[in-house]
């Protein structure tokens, strides 16, 4: 066989082989990334960030990891205590059902608002939405993955 043809053949196939080596390396990186994400401890279904809090409790910028049922209000027995003069003692409850969050107003005096709209009984809540309780504004976010 002509040595030149043999060389051409080898170079040709090594290009294809390199393409697959590249893909294999990439897939390796992807798998490492996914395994690292899976190894993390089970995170909570979401977190609440305090966007605005004139009374100072809770502090602005504070983040709360949420349980599937999280109560909010002025009473100290709530999971998130909102010490605001316009908040009721048992103001609202956040629940995680199926794959999405819902906010329920517990008959508060001044109402609960989602993105400025008043909640009648129960309203669905998306990540990035803002809940207002009294003068306190809280934003729902996905739990930090890393």
């Amino acid at each position: 066989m002509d040595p030149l043809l043999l060389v051409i053949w080898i170079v040709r196939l090594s290009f294809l082989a390199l393409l697959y080596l590249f893909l294999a390396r990439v897939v390796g990186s992807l798998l490492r990334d996914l395994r690292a994400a899976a190894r993390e401890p089970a995170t909570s279904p979401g977190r609440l960030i305090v966007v605005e809090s004139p009374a100072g409790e809770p502090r602005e910028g504070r983040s709360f990891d949420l349980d599937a049922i999280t109560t909010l209000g002025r009473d100290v027995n709530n999971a998130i205590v909102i010490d605001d003069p316009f908040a009721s003692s048992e103001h609202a409850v956040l629940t995680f059902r199926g794959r999405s969050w819902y906010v329920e107003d517990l008959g508060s005096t001044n109402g609960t608002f989602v993105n400025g709209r008043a909640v009648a009984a129960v309203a669905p809540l998306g990540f990035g939405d803002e809940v207002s309780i009294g003068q306190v504004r809280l934003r729902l976010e996905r739990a930090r993955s890393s």
Partner: protein
Amino acid sequence: MTIARRRSPWIALLRVLRPIRPRPRWTEARLLALAAIALLVGSLSLRLGVDGQFGLADARGLGIYLGALLIAHFAQVLAGRRSDEILLPVVGLLGGISLLLMERLPQNLVTLGEGESALGLGDVQLIWLVLAIAVATTLAIVVRSDAWLRRYKYTWAAVGIALLLLTFIFGADVAGQRLTLRLGPISGQPSELLKVILVVFLAGYLSENRPLLIEQDSRLGPLRLPPLPYLAPMVAMWAIALGIVVVQRDLGAALLFFAVFLALTYAATGRLSLVIIGLALFLAGSALMANLFEHVRDRVDIWLDPFADPLGSGYQVVQSLHAFARGGLLGTGLGNGLPMVGGRLPIPEVHTDFPLAALGEELGLVGVIAILGLYFVVIQRGLRIGASAADDFRAILATGLALVVGVQAFIIAAGNLKVLPLTGVTLPFVSYGGSSLLANAVVVGLLLALSDRGVEPPPPPSEATGWRRRFRRASA
């Protein structure tokens, strides 16, 4: 409960002013090195295939391209971003394969300038590729906030519709399709940019109205639907897609827009009923179009039986199938395909619509599968970036950006292989063309920016910002 870092304006300011700390990106460096080696071997193989000489085919062009990738890598290292490290090498390899292919096709397919200094296909593509890398890197480094996308979603939608209308009215007809818009010396295909704008708008709309779309309070037969007014965008989207088919005769863009729209609606709401209605609308529209319009029926007829008129209307598809067949399992080798038969190209428009057929001929089934695998990686990265995003807007945006590239690649690949009717969309990162490369570079740049852990927190939803809030306060 944990106490997160405090985010006061002062700390935010300090974080901006703090000297930027370079951060090594080893995964990206390793993958880029491997991609560079693969491209060098490819170039060697191309030179051997074309004239049997040892050496690199157009070493200068490949050098400039690899240099641009290296600069993009170091720019991100110096900026200290913690963004995705896999996208750039994967897209870089696709771009490099494009460069090899364009250098190997007859250079007079595209010329820029005249006389001695005229640039051929390979050189023009090199310029676009370098520009695309610059755009993607700039976006990845500069974009620190998505507020400019999130807040002005209706402005973006207006820009998109304006672009579409401009193309409808002033667009130049090329080969029976009204795709190209000329503004003085600049000409481009707005539909490429439009796909990015569409995703931005959909991400804004769906993330804001997701709770309402999940509610089920109207019924249509066995299907439970969200409140009817919220279906209006779906119908509008359908009408726009049909308008594109009728006026622009651009089946590919219409298919791409509608497919991405349905996928994003499903991703945002998780409701199959919306997808079923969308598919029903799509099928009804397609049937209507195929019966009413000549150009749609032609495409379908060619798809069903290209061999009915192998030298006329079915020529492209038949030649494409022959190219894949000649390639076989391992291909004929780079540079060994049939560039010209009897003085003309075996596949017309090979550099824009049929690059996959050319690659299929020279790299074979094995090579084509590797290239499709690269597109799968791009999609996977987008979905992963979306899954770890902090809020709905970013999640839907990242998902949509990845899908718009992935779906486009598979639409044209399927068209080349006669799996779907042939539509004139480009193969992302590989086809010749400035609009296509730059629009896809914007997609990559945005994905890189979105993947950065440590971007500023998303702004509050639009209802609580700007003049509307002040107005509400004043009126309350």
